[in-house]
């Protein structure tokens, strides 16, 4: 588990802990009971009343918020005070919720790469996967190619926009998992990168 961009896995999934992703950051909130939640170690009293379909009115101290919630499997989406959040139980960090890695791209559209440690066995490699549903418009590397950090490896098009998936570090292309024209879904592996890592591999 040596990829520098993968956040450390939580020690153990605490029941009642939720990750709230919104506005570019992810916060961890522990729901202690129906009327208490804990944020950054501070306990906050809440009062939740249902109101309409999938809607709640929540009183938190002096503030009062209308919250809309939609449940999608084990995840939920919610909106309150004009802000939206994706919510999931802590301890479950899917590929597409991990922070985006890699050096800033030189183009105006920023980095598009998405990396995670490859395989359940913890092989000392990095898998670059699709950050969103997209079409592969160019595969710029082949198996065995050496790449430097920042080198473009795959070009994607999504919603008329070009996204460049770049190598997050130097290494060698172990495998290419996509080809020109593929429609790829989020998390779908595009290429596997192996070779020297900038950090010690995990035991």
């Amino acid at each position: 588990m040596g990829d520098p961009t993968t956040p450390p896995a939580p020690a153990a999934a605490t029941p009642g802990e939720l990750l709230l992703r919104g506005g570019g950051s992810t916060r961890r909130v522990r729901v202690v009971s129906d009327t208490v939640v804990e944020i950054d170690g501070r306990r906050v009293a809440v009062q939740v009343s249902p109101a309409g379909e999938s809607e709640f009115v929540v009183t938190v101290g002096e503030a009062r918020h209308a919250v809309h919630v939609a449940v999608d499997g084990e995840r939920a989406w919610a909106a309150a005070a004009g802000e939206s959040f994706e919510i999931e139980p802590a301890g479950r960090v899917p590929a597409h919720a991990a922070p985006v890695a890699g050096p800033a791209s030189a183009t105006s559209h920023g980095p598009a790469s998405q990396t995670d440690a490859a395989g359940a066995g913890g092989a000392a490699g990095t898998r670059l996967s699709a950050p969103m549903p997209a079409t592969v418009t160019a595969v710029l590397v082949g198996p065995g190619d050496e790449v430097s950090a920042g080198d473009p490896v795959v070009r994607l098009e999504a919603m008329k926009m070009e996204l460049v998936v770049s190598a997050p570090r130097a290494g060698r292309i172990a495998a290419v998992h996509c080809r020109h024209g593929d429609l790829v879904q989020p998390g779908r592996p595009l290429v596997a990168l192996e070779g020297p890592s900038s950090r010690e591999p995990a035991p």
Partner: protein
Amino acid sequence: MFQRLLIANRGEIAVRIVRTCETLGIATVAVHSEADRNARHVVEADAAIAIGEAPASRSYLSIDRLIDAARAVGADAVHPGYGFLSENAAFAAACTDAGLTFVGPSAEVIARFGSKIEARRAAREAGVPTVPGVEPADQSPAGIVAAVRRTGVPALLKPSAGGGGKGMRIVREADDDAAVAAEAAAARREAEAAFGDGTLYVERRLERPRHVEVQVAGDGEGRVVHLGERDCSVQRRHQKVVEEAPAPDLTESTRERLTAAAVDLAEAARYDSVGTVEFLVEGAGDDARFYFLELNTRLQVEHPVTELVTGADLVAVQLRIAAGRRDWAPARREPRGHAIECRVCAEDPATDFRPQAGRILACREPAGPGVRVDSGVGPGSEVPVHYDPLLAKLAVWGETRDAARRRALSALRRYVVLGVRTNLSLLQRVLEHPRFARGAVGVGFVDEERAALVASGADESVLAAVAASAARALRQGPHSPPPGAPAVAAGAEVDPWVGLPDWRL
């Protein structure tokens, strides 16, 4: 007037065209790709016809399939919306050849203003100032590099065939040939993908200008009217995101010079539909300078703000002109009050506005006094990866700019889209921003203030409320029991009336 109109588009603009047709008694036929089989515009039209696969090149950009569809359904006219083939002269010509009325200007007018060179020439001939720029005859990387050197930096690389900011790139260093060539290649690919034509135009980039445009309409017989101007300076990725009418902080004399220039150009062109003359404005006061940018020969995304302040129905005006009606001109054109539009997009501002796709799990659109929502989605809608991420447009009207701004904020705060990330929070940060609240901002506004605009407005109490609600909803599963059901009230406020009021903040 027409009997049956094929709408050669999708999303909110297709739905919006249906709305006007309903009031005019024109039957509508939607077209749809495989990805849009259950889309909102398909449901809202009177009929629908499948035209191909999900990639736009094999459906919404296929002239042959659209013409076949129009014939198959017995349409007598075709409305192209915006984007896709709306500014494609070949499509307009193909419609005419097939005996269909194209709701837009003639193919000749589209072709002339579709060429940046021709458009600039027309502007200069009409006495309208233009930004320095060139469409290099040599479109090779070397040719583009040379053109950038000639024009000077900062320079913009723009698709000659395009509009709407798609495929635009900024070049700041004229000396880094490789970087310029790389940008040119990327711009060309995007231009080809979006417009089917990779020709590039190189233009000097003005620093901190405002984008102000004038809505015009003409009947091809030399009669042209304008419906005032719009300010569209709030842009991200060179695409407009907040627009308003009238433009704030324009002096009356500048406004008159600007609208007169637009009318002059449209008259000279014998312009024969609804169109928009775009300008960049530099400086303030009566001596503000403006430069012709382009003439968009189609309905503009942001047309609702003009409709809100004038009362005109611009789609109806288009249809009347296309049908050869003499009474096409809107009765009233002077603006009343102020209107602001916010484009609600499936995109993630935190990752450089990356477009998002997915299923909309819940959707609550604001309503009420002064609030208009033009939407292309609803609960359960799929947002496909293949098309523009615009979901809906919130347009509000107020007696003053500040009333409109506050009303838009109030509407945005209660606008709920769950299931895909949107820019709803960013739009609130824009409208709350002191620079925007004060008045006119330049086109660099979003880039300059990005950190503040991308920030979440959620404090700890919002996080606590969201976590507590989500925990409850996750426990209950995908569907909550009816409110007020006894099981739900446990732990919530159930105080009976006990004399003193039960005070809930």
